[in-house]
């Protein structure tokens, strides 16, 4: 941000005295470049600031990706293997032994299409909940929008998801699924899932700074969330009268919507619309919660 070259004076200020130093011959801006004020109860998201620092966001994502893929030779392989192994376990135990209904699809690809976005969501929320505590050395030493830490964790997991999705599309091809126009909706649902992960990540990250046992509780809650979502079973197993309550869970609309896109099934528009509303509301709330907790991060972390 450059100081304006034009000399500007207030009504009662004379011209600046010439000075030996080069910077001081520039006129200072009339309004402060940075205003430092006590925290206010109501805090708004400063979009201009996010824009100004956006390069740092890319650097944070790039750092994590680069370091991970450098550290572990299997770095990229794990990203693919984790959901594949999980899918294998569920296929053997739930698909073959229990015989869970899977919307008339082969159970293996049915469960993989659910586990892949779930692994993304689960890992994204877990790693962003740790991002502020893990980034304490940055928070206490340098200023940048704190939101970037949890958001970057989600972005890193999104990159993993994209790599692992290659297997999904290979499977689709292998089983001979015809792509339909609905596939175009898939990226939109991924975006919605990402926003939902950001919302949950922001909230749990802010809570984790204050209460350190959030990190212990969170995996349990996520496990519960997984089984109340149609990840390893189809939502058709849920009785009709509970269906509306069940759809309160935004993951129902997202995961079933993704399956409908991939396998050309019937889209359940009301539950998708509902998941969009819930995601939006959660995002607004958690951004607010994060922002009002943000002031104390450097003091408490």
């Amino acid at each position, binding site marked *: *941000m450059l*100081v304006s070259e034009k000399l500007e004076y207030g009504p009662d*200020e004379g011209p*600046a*005295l010439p*000075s*030996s*130093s*080069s*910077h*001081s011959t*520039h006129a*200072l*801006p009339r309004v*402060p*470049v*940075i*205003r*430092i*004020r*006590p*925290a206010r109860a109501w805090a708004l998201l400063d979009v201009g600031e996010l824009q100004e620092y956006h*390069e*740092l966001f890319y*650097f944070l994502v*790039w*750092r994590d990706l*680069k*370091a991970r893929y*450098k*550290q572990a030779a299997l770095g990229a392989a794990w990203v693919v293997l984790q959901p594949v192994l999980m899918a294998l376990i569920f296929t053997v135990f739930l698909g073959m032994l229990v015989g869970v209904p899977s919307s008339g699809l082969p159970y293996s690809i049915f469960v993989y299409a659910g586990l892949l976005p779930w692994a993304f969501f689960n890992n994204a929320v877990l790693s962003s909940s740790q991002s502020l505590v893990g980034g304490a*050395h*940055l*928070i*206490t*030493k*340098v*200023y*940048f929008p704190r939101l970037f830490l949890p958001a970057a964790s989600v972005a890193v997991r999104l990159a993993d998801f994209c790599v692992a999705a290659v297997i999904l599309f290979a499977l689709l091809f292998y089983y001979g699924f015809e792509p339909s126009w609905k596939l175009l909706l898939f990226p939109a649902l991924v975006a919605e899932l990402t926003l939902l992960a950001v919302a949950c990540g922001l909230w749990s990250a802010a*809570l984790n700074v*204050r*209460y*350190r*046992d*959030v990190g212990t*509780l969170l995996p349990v809650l996520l496990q519960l969330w997984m089984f109340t979502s149609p990840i390893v079973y189809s939502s058709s197993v849920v009785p009709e009268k509970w269906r509306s309550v069940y759809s309160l869970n935004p993951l129902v609309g997202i995961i079933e919507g993704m399956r409908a896109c991939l396998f050309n099934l019937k889209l359940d528009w009301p539950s998708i619309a509902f998941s969009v509303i819930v995601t939006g509301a959660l995002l607004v709330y958690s951004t607010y919660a994060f922002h009002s907790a943000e*002031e104390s991060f*450097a*003091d*408490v972390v």
Partner: protein
Amino acid sequence: MRPIIKVEKLSKLYRLGQRSIAAPTLREAFMGKLASPFSRRRRDGEDDLWALRDVSFEIRPGEVVGIIGRNGAGKSTLLKILSRITRPTAGYADLYGTVGSLMEVGTGFHPDLSGRENIFLNGALLGMKRQQIERRFDEIVAFAEMERFLEMPVKHYSSGMYLRLAFAIAAHLDPEILLLDEVLAVGDAAFQNKCLRKMKEVSRDGRTVLFVSHNMAAIQQMCSRVFLIQSGRLSEEGSSSSVTSRYLNDASQSEDGDFDLSNHPARLPGCQPVIQRLTLYNGSDAPTMRFHPGDAMVAEMLISPNSTIREPRIAFSIEDSTGQRITTAATYFQEERFPDIEGPSRIRCCLPQLQLGSGRYLLSLSLDNKYQGMIDGLHNAAWFEVIWRNSFGNGEAYSPVYGPVLMASSWERVE
């Protein structure tokens, strides 16, 4: 001229034990609510600490201002507020320029990334734009003198290389306002000197600099104005020489050459108060801080280590009143190795003949070994005075224009 930094009644309140009182875990927060559902967080103010209280000042563009004070006086809190790491509780600050702050060198360095990658990452964290980093990349590498190691992960760097790279990046920041917190306290003397030279260059460019340091010599060399912060308040402000010398006098309150160093503001950051006391003698039994040229000087240190210090290296330096180092006496210049320090010990350093002209001199002490590195160090922690007396029989008074060192000399006509 309008100020580039305007600070008005800036205050920062810390609730001490905020974490331990206000529930460290969700479970305890929950149980606390069950136990006493109607009690709000206690607000009696007993545990409140005003780290900063009603601090107001203005800084004009191009000024280099030093901030001094004891550990915990609020210097770093002030810098953290100005760099937006934390928010004030009351008051405000307006900055009319871009800000770069340096609270430590190498913030955010990732051990697995190469030097090249870390330059970009660290630069971005310090607020540089990608283009800016690219433009100055070669300069940074040249300054750090490490072209050959650019592709090596920084975890394989020696600590010296690591510091050089980190400082090189920081030195090429281009903000209008630069906030520095004790960054010069790291590294060896050669590195510190290089940093200091670079900082002088930066301030000559007309950059506005705020500089927190315990190094009075650096403060005197760099800063035109100095703020003294005591218990969160701006207690004094003025020219660097007047404020620093008054501060040193207050800090080393001693009329008799006996300096209590156990809680001394000149202690370097990260040091343990192992050197507890320094007493100066001029050959007689009574401590003194007044010497005459040619007097013997005996400096007695009380060293109380927590555990045995093996192969200790003790150094004792004399600086002139501007902080320029004149000489150092150290155990490691002696032929025999100094014995291990096993418990509280009195250690004497004897200078048989003080060959200094009249004036005021500062003293610095350091204790280290190869196992622990720096154990304790105090910069400009004590002082003494040399008062002219015709000790060597030379007649005229020896004034500083002749140079700091007065050597005993004999003169005769040989032919």
